[in-house]
């Protein structure tokens, strides 16, 4: 395959699907190829990894966190709203999927989709929170997550949600299919972020994050675009929750409403760099990898490490790891500060 074109030279039209594909790739340019790679490579790597590495649960958790980190990316990276209570959507998805398996007897894959829907519905319910800004939004979303947990796990609702006694989906358990679903979901989230980065919608979101008033003046319907990003982010977490519930099949409300899940997703996204395509995935793979090496036996040391990491990132590298590589690349290209 020829490398991506470096200019606007018109490509003579050739017949056949291969020619058309090549033409489309050229039209997309180098960025297009790396965008396709951003979807295909992670999917291929995770599909292969499960055959090469025996700890499937670790890979599954990594996938789930990568999706959640991308969800944080969508809402925080593109709109500047940081939801500490993001886990609420994950839990809503887990419960949405589980309860639809238990009560509606739907196939598990459909249940995962319904889990995503549950996440989006909760997102719609919490849309008024977007009226708050900055820290207020972050804390209000945290309170909302705790409130949802209090409701779902409430003993008074045990006949509906099974309250604190948890969920058992052993009949729907399917190890390989649920893993593949998680991989597909990662691909979907990568695709979503790629589209967001290239589309008018993403541009409008970033304009809104920079300066909502100016964006509104320039014709961006700020409230609608922001709410849409919020719903997409909530649905991603809901889908992740649904896949997670299906894959582990026995869980308690404390497992899927654990604030640590929000914390991890945010840390992974910030570590890799929000607003980028690869950052959240790299953050999730690297940090969750480290966590599963050292963190499982001594979680407090891992917590200490990432606490220090966050503080250091905020103080010295506010753009995440991504800004480091961008800086280096700029250096090599002779960008400002580099040698000519």
């Amino acid at each position, binding site marked *: 395959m020829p490398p991506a074109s470096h200019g606007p030279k018109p490509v003579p039209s050739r017949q056949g699907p291969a020619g058309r594909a090549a033409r489309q790739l050229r039209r997309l340019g180098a960025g297009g190829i790396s965008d396709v790679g951003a979807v295909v490579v992670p999917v291929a790597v995770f599909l292969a990894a499960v055959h090469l590495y025996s700890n499937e649960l670790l890979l599954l958790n990594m996938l789930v966190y990568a999706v959640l980190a991308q969800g944080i990316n969508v809402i925080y990276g593109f709109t500047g709203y940081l939801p500490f209570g993001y886990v609420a959507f994950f839990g809503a998805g887990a419960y949405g999927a589980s309860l639809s398996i238990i009560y509606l007897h739907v196939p598990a894959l459909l249940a995962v989709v319904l889990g995503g829907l549950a996440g989006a519905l909760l997102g719609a319910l919490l849309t008024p929170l977007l009226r*708050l800004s900055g*820290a207020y939004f972050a804390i209000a979303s945290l309170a909302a997550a705790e409130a949802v947990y209090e409701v779902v796990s409430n003993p008074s609702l045990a006949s509906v949600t099974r309250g604190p006694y948890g969920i058992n989906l052993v009949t729907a358990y399917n190890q390989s299919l649920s893993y593949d679903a998680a991989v597909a979901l990662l691909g979907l989230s990568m695709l979503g972020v790629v589209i967001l980065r290239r589309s008018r919608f993403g541009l409008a979101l970033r304009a809104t994050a920079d300066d909502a008033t100016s964006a509104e003046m320039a014709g961006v319907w700020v409230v609608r675009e922001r709410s849409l990003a919020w719903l997409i982010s909530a649905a991603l977490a809901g889908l992740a929750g649904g896949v997670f519930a299906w894959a582990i099949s026995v869980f308690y409300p404390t497992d899927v409403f654990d604030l640590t899940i929000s914390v991890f997703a945010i840390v992974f996204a910030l570590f890799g760099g929000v607003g980028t395509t690869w950052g959240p995935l790299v953050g999730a793979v690297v940090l969750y990898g480290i966590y599963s090496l050292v963190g499982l036996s001594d979680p407090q040391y891992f917590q200490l490490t990432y606490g220090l990491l*966050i503080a250091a990132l905020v103080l010295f590298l506010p753009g995440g790891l991504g800004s480091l590589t961008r800086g280096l690349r700029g250096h090599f290209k002779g960008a400002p500060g580099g040698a000519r």
Partner: protein
Amino acid sequence: MLFEFAVVAGILFGVYYALLGVGLNLVFGVLQVVNLAHGDVVMLGSYLAFEAYYAWHLNPLWAVVIGVVPALVAGGALYAGVGPRLARAADPEMLSLVLFFGISQIIEALATVAFGNNQRSVPASSLGAAPLRILGERYPRDWWVVAGVSAFVLAALFAYLYASPVGRATRAVMSSPRESAAVGIDVRRVSVATFGVGTFLAASAGVLGVFLLGGVNPTEGVSITVTAFAVIVLGGLGNAPGTVLGGLVFGLATELTQTYASTWSGLVPYVLLLVVMLARPKGLLSKSARVA
């Protein structure tokens, strides 16, 4: 009878909740920083009370006094270190939120290393054993002691804010950092002092919280921060006297639901926080509150 008990308990807890929130609110009012590590400092205060009682065989209330100097120094030093860097940032509010979130994780991890994962408590009898009988109801004595000490610390805080030169400067910075700087107030020094005072208030709330919050464990910080935030949102952000009202409303609301719908009482702080934030974002006393 049940009702009277719940109301009195609500007031006692309310005074305590005011103390729990006021440090967070003071820091917010002066520095425009949401200190997400507030609850973790409260947690450390509780461990100080625990150590005072078990390791040093003191009345746990001494921990309030023991905590004064370390809290002032640690809080002031921390803010002196990170403050200038935050002030230079493009979006100081978001940055400080994430930074203090990181600091909260660090404190939680260190506390787990130091004290282990178990729930610890100090017996209520260390504050005097016999229950107090008032208006025909019996109340645990520690509730009254805690409310009394909380009221004392709050009174000391208001004396500091309204009668001392540093306190007056603090209130000036609360209303306008720029104008304060213009009339010659050292805003940076006031900020450092305020963070120290806020840290002490959190730690003293922790010493008392080991009784009213049912013990202490290293992971309780987040939920305490949310509770404190609910209290100060009720009273108005940046409005220190309003926090007392916020605490009382919060205490009454939790005690009344505890009495009449106990399974749902856990929901109260969060729902109150959300409702007030969305309906009256400037607090119940919105006229005197600052625009946040």
